[in-house]
């Protein structure tokens, strides 16, 4: 299972996702509208993963914890309070680049 190409199928049928804070995992899960608990890996160098998880948590989109507090989080979670996550807008990026190169 470790390096399966896409988790889309599994995600689609899941009711709750517990994941590390990698951008791909978080975004894919939130975009499918699945409730997400993000678990932070304390061992990565500057732990920048925390920033996204904290922000998503501030925005009310995910629950977050670390390995030792996971059980507690699972026991006390309220998934219906999670807010939907609006999608990013790559078209704004395309528009910006087109302006840079005079391609509008």
């Amino acid at each position, binding site marked *: 299972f470790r390096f399966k*190409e896409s988790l889309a199928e599994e995600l689609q049928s899941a009711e709750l996702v517990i994941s590390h804070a990698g951008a791909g995992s978080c975004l894919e899960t939130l975009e499918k509208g699945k409730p997400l608990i993000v678990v932070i890996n304390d061992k990565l160098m*500057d732990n920048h993963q925390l*920033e996204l998880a904290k922000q998503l948590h501030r925005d009310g989109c995910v629950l977050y914890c670390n390995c030792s507090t996971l059980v507690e989080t699972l026991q006390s979670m309220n998934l219906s309070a999670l807010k939907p996550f609006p999608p*990013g*807008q*790559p078209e*704004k990026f395309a528009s910006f680049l*087109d302006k840079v190169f005079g391609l509008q």
Partner: protein
Amino acid sequence: TGGHTTEILRLLSCLSESYSPRHYVLADSDKMSEAKIRSFEQKRAETFSKSQFSLDRIPRSREVRQSWISSVVTTLYSILYSLPLTYKRKPDLILCNGPGTCVPVCLSAFLLGLLRIKRTVIVYVESICRVETLSLSGKILYYFSDYFIVQWPDLKKKYPKSVYLGRIV
């Protein structure tokens, strides 16, 4: 690698065919990105039949948690590969979003620009993971890129020369 590849393919998703051919540069140790890229390009070719792309690999500049000193050495080694590659491709635009692999490529392009061999526009998009601080690649390329894009307002405040377009992936 992984998350970076997913993000960059999303950035590419709305670009017109003016941005073609696309040359992807990967770290030699990256096993998963190639499949994602081929899948993306295959889908793209369904809409734009003349779509072209290529894949090149260079030595990985830096492993996670690698020390400062050895990182400089391995990055210099990667530049030995990225310089001839960048010279060969002479891109009009380099788009990158933060893996260590992008640093030697951008520095090579910057150097070729200084030497008046090819002027490449360097666009750096910091990962959506970066809300309050820049990645190491970001900190370096903030000074070498033509456009430095951040996805959260805190970073725009801290790095005033950056561009903030909101979330774009």
